[in-house]
């Protein structure tokens, strides 16, 4: 394997892979490890992939599998599909809310979404993969991806509202200087 194609592959995909890993793992350290491990696996196995056009899907799939391998799924993940559909209505206020929050708060809200919804939701928001590619990456049917997107978005909107409420709660009035009395 020559160095240049690999460097190009890293440059093209390591940032969105890191964002995906960050939403899954919940902290920057584990996210960095996941991304490094993904490219490490590519360097040892993946470069034999015949269709280089599938490299992107291969990387996302490998990262997701590596994440799952590190963390055994709990029983909740299998039953959560039975929940009712998410609330679909979106108020204009909710769009403005996203704009008011900083990126870290939005990522924190994304991390609050149940993991089974979080993975397809993050891939959707990265905008690199279509719903068909997301289904292939996660190894689930297309209908399941759509269902998880719907429910995940509802959870995310609730989490964004909590994030904003928390950020407001952190703001406290500046204390009055001693010795001055209000007029």
């Amino acid at each position: 394997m020559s160095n240049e194609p690999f460097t190009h592959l890293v440059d093209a995909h390591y940032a969105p892979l890191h964002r995906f890993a960050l939403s899954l793992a919940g902290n920057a350290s584990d996210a960095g490890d996941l991304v490094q491990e993904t490219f490490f696996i590519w360097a040892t196995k993946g470069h034999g992939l015949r269709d280089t056009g599938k490299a992107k899907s291969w990387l996302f799939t490998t990262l997701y599998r590596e994440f799952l391998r590190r963390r055994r799924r709990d029983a909740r993940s299998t039953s959560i599909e039975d929940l009712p559909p998410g609330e679909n209505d979106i108020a204009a206020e909710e769009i403005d809310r996203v704009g008011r929050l900083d990126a870290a708060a939005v990522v924190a809200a994304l991390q609050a979404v149940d993991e089974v919804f979080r993975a397809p939701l993050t891939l959707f928001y990265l905008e690199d993969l279509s719903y068909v590619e997301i289904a292939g990456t996660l190894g689930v049917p297309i209908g399941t991806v759509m269902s998880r997107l719907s429910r995940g978005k509802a959870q995310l909107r609730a989490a964004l509202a909590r994030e904003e409420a928390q950020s407001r709660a952190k703001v406290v009035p500046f204390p009055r200087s001693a010795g001055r009395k209000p007029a």
Partner: protein
Amino acid sequence: MNDREAKFILGAYRPGGRDAGDALFHEALEQAQDDPALGAWFARAQAHDAAVAAKLAEIAPPPGLREAILAGARASRSRRPLWRRAVWLTLATAAAIAVIGSLALPALRARAGERRFADFVLADVADTRDHHNDGDPARVLQAWLSRPTTRLPQDLTIDFAALRASGCRTLNFGGKPVIEVCFQRDGHWFHLYAIRVSDLPEGRDDPAPAMLARDRYACASWPNAANGMRFIVATAGDEAELARLL
């Protein structure tokens, strides 16, 4: 297709129109054009999705991640047969023996945390000109390291707190202190970096040094459990230079 079904499908439609050519969405999109209420909902949904996507895109990978990925992949590559590597043709027989010994050491790929530390050290050695040693403890250690008979993994223990307190060069690695002591061996400069194991628990327990080479620099990493330290010695050159110390 009722409204609920249309919303269900359109929820998978990425903002920006990248899925416009996908036949699955055609009917739902046409319905959104014909139904003002559904159209308004779709516009808000797309605006919300675009806003979240834009915030997510603002998240930048941490500094050093790209270099760590590239360094890790280089360590993974299988080495070509030694007799095909041009560098070996230029080495004297005595040096070659030392190099072969060094290549028998395990590649530095065991744990990502250790790799990141190695990448950090190689970047510092390559980029920083002001390597300096201050204080008596550093000078004593420097003199000991410079002795031709000193073998690092076996013999090296340090008093981290004393070195740091005496003004030894201290760096910041992910919020954790790292000290550096420079020394010469046979006229060649080496740089010893030390971090507490408690500050970098993600690494090998094996005390055997692991090697990593990048560009024109090389380093060897090993832990000393008894001393509670993780060490890296780095230098300009290849593994052959380090083999003289190990």
